[in-house]
């Protein structure tokens, strides 16, 4: 459990980091909070030639609300996200991540780039139909949440790209529910639900390679209050829509049942968290 050999570059700016990644020719890896990468290195599951440490790059920890969208810097810590009031869904979800020590080091962009399908923040990004801003050798681009997550621990980022910022639209109403084995564990199943006008987005974590956006068809369009019956129907639809696999922490059948339960809980919360009109 010791890292394989690598060389280390402490980046001073985004440009510096991107240049270092380019110089590594695809064999570089960004280090942010280190809460996922360091264990991966210790188990020798990754062998980058160069570690590009962005943890002290200045100016990447901003949190700003503009036109109903939270603009967050790549290095916003889970703890800061949990403590802010601008985006209550993101705050609630961030509180579910690990323990204090992990939340005070781990970063928003690190979690999104790591793309763990059971992680909280990827589910939130997808539920809010957010996006990441990415810098690379050929300039910057914006990747929408639906395109960012490709598979388990796989994102659409190139090896030479870095997330610099995150857009998280603030929903009109939201709900979050999670079932984990212990306090601070990755979710067995989590559900993030967000309502924008008459549109409902329900995302389930822990049931597929990527955070799963529930295809609820017409059910996803809601008008006015969401009734108890509607919650139950939507929860059943979510359970129908997921296709989980068996693993150590539960059977596919069990995860499907949890999906229904967590969706119901998230939607019940959503019906009580309507944002005050600005």
């Amino acid at each position, binding site marked *: *459990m*010791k890292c394989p050999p690598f060389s280390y570059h402490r980046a001073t700016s985004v440009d510096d980091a991107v240049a270092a990644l380019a110089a590594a020719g695809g064999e570089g890896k960004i280090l942010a909070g280190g809460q996922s990468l360091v264990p991966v290195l210790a188990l*020798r599951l990754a062998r980058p030639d160069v570690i590009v440490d962005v943890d002290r790059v200045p100016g990447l920890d901003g949190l700003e609300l503009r036109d109903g969208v939270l603009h967050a810097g790549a290095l916003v810590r889970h703890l800061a996200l949990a403590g802010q009031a601008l985006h209550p869904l993101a705050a609630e979800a961030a509180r579910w991540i690990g323990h204090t020590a992990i939340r005070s080091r781990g970063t928003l962009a690190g979690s999104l780039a790591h793309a763990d399908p059971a992680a909280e923040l990827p589910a939130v990004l997808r539920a809010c139909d957010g996006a990441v801003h990415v810098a690379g050798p050929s300039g910057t681009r914006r990747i929408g949440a639906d395109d960012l997550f490709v598979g388990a621990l796989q994102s659409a980022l190139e090896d030479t790209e870095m997330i610099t910022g995150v857009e998280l639209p603030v929903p009109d109403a939201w709900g979050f529910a999670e079932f984990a*084995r*212990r*306090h601070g564990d990755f979710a067995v199943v989590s559900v993030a639900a967000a309502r924008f006008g008459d549109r409902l987005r329900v995302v389930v974590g822990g049931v597929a390679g990527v955070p799963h956006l529930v295809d609820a068809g017409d059910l996803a369009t809601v008008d006015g209050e969401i009734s108890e019956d509607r919650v139950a129907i939507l929860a059943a639809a979510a359970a129908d829509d997921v296709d989980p696999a068996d693993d150590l922490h*539960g*059977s596919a*059948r069990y995860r499907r049942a949890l999906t229904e339960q967590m969706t119901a809980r998230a939607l019940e919360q959503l019906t009580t968290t309507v944002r005050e009109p600005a």
Partner: protein
Amino acid sequence: MTPTDEHAPASGTPVRRKEDARLLTGRGRFVSDLALPRMRHVAFVRSPVAHGRITGVDTAGALEVEGVSAVFTGEHPAIAPVALRAQSGLPGYVETDQPPLARGKVRFAGEAVAAVVADDRYLAEDGAEAVVVDYEPLTPTVCAWAEPEHPVHEEAPDNVLLSRTFRAGDVDAALDGAAVVVDRELTTNRHGGNPIECRAGVARYEAADRKLTFWSGTQVPWIVRTQLAELLDLPEGNIRVIAPDVGGGFGVKAVLYPEDVALCLMAMAMPGTPLKWVEDRVEHLLAATHARDHRYVLRAGFAADGELLAVKADVWCNTGAYSVYPWTAGIEPLMAGGLLTGPYKLTDYECTVRGVATNTSPSGPYRGVARPSTVFAMEALMDSGARALGLDPIALRRRNLILPADIPYKMPSRLVDDSGAYEACLDKAVATFDLDRWRAEQSRRRTEGGRPIGIGVGVYNELTGLGRAASAGPRMAFRTGHDACTVRINPDGAVTVFSGVTSQGQGLETTMAQVVADALGVDYGDVEVRYGDTDESLWGFGAFSSRQAVISGGAAHLAGEHVRGRALALAAALKEAPVEDLDLRGGEVYMAGQEKPIISLAEVARVAYLQSDRLPEGFEPGLEGTKFYDPIRGAFAAGAQIAALEFDPATGEIGILDWVCVEDAGRIVHPVIVDGQIAGSIAQGIGGAMYEHLVYDEDGNLSTGTLLDYLMPTAGEIPELRIGHVSTPGKNPTGVRGVGEGGTLAPNAVVAGALADALGVEVDDLPVTPARVWELVNP
């Protein structure tokens, strides 16, 4: 204030722990902290296959890695001649070899095949990656109750290393006469000790004087020294084993491991170069001893009034790939058969136990050895019996408990129970818990809604402080009944104690100081305790089977009393006073009827060491003494736990609402240490009952190889525990009973019992996880 108040006994009070100043300020001295000049680091190459012949090992690539100085394999001339052989005189026991590094074949995934020595651990791991080992796979056996295709050891074609039948009375006749007969088939989940500090060792060999020093995070330095001497062919006095501060043990470190022997052999092949190996968590989960992978096929008969008439049991214990040194494959099965009936009276009993080799990591002692499983089995029979008879499960237990009037009680396995405090523990636990209130809440929820509540109970006996007549271990070449202690009064009157104990965090330094301070008549603060170093103290077997408070504490008390006698005799001679009128308290000698001391212990000691001209006729200089103690049998410690749990049928979520434990620790030396032992062991028991599970796939790969999948409870999962005591002093010098393990024994039974009580489903396989609860409710 009278002198007696001022010098109140240290025992029975929560004196400040001596070890805490260094442990709590980060100044502990662990093997992991040790740095020696010229020290190099070792990484083991571990087998990725569970069972296979080794057809080639190529170390050339590793030797080219920067910083690598040596690579050892099982065929290396320094390693090849040595094998560990755990021995037992039990009839039918199949003795097998365990090589320090695999030779010829590998028997479990994780077995050490080669070792790389390098300048640091990173480079050693780089080297380990470059060692190429070829395997010809053999079919692995993972399950101890499955037919083997390729036996693990040639010597045991059916993989059974040991089997024994315990028999008392006529179980079939008793079953025939029973009003109800219940059958249960249970399996318990493999898990392990997982101390915070994994295994660790530093070995240094000085060729000039043929001296080996082995710093080891072991619970049993003396046993390690004796065995190393045999294996390495060195005089025992040339070996020094030092167990400094050790970060938890729980039994896992009461084993001499092949890695330990390999490290010493490699150090002997590289004289003058200290070699360090610190196990990481992945290695620990993979290759440190596991435990509790058992199956119980049970039948019990009860009379209509609830009397337990018969128990018939077939037990399989998964021994893993090797019979652990020195405890053998018998460690779990023999404990299972010997203690299955627990605190219940029974005359007709038949139980066949087996230790079965498989291609998995070896099983060894883990806090509670086998009894968390047997208590689960026995209490499952009690609960099933109560349901079948329509009786209250607690009343059914009471009906069968061994009572004070029955003591000494010969169990059907012929162990002799000296406790009888079970009912007292159960009564106090039930009262503390307020059973009526919880039963009322249970029915309220049944009618008004809310998550169903279940109440689970476990009553148990902990076999502690085993003397020579009931020695731990299956007829091994040694008996672990005694320990020794030397008490030395220094020339300044302060006291140094050389104790045979070891401590892995459980505060033995403090406990021994308390016992000696009181036996001798000095202040707790004036007693310093040395332990864990075979060059610094006398023989002691170390920490296992809740023995040290009873046995080492007994030796400490006797040694203290003995030296007190010597000191008073000298004081009497010096002051020309009758010795029977003298008393030693707080380091001062008092004469009956006088308020002021007549002489200080410091002055007496000064005379004893430095002023032989003042020594009375016939007095040898010096003021110290050594005593051994063996309780011959041991002290059974009673305990009962009762808890209320709630279950969410929709998600399987389990909530612990209240948990009460009452134990009989006899006379308590340090109340906070005792409660800490009980709380910690209940937490480990809850871990085993609800979270911890080492899972192998059918190819023999460990699926739970990191703490991401092997879940241990954190402070967040363990409820506030309510701990109570009853006290029936044990028949030993300090009146204590062991408390190190009891807490682990009940949680399996409590959690499974609560689930059955809440939802009416019987759980046969542990652990009780949310997924399992949900599956049982939604079959």
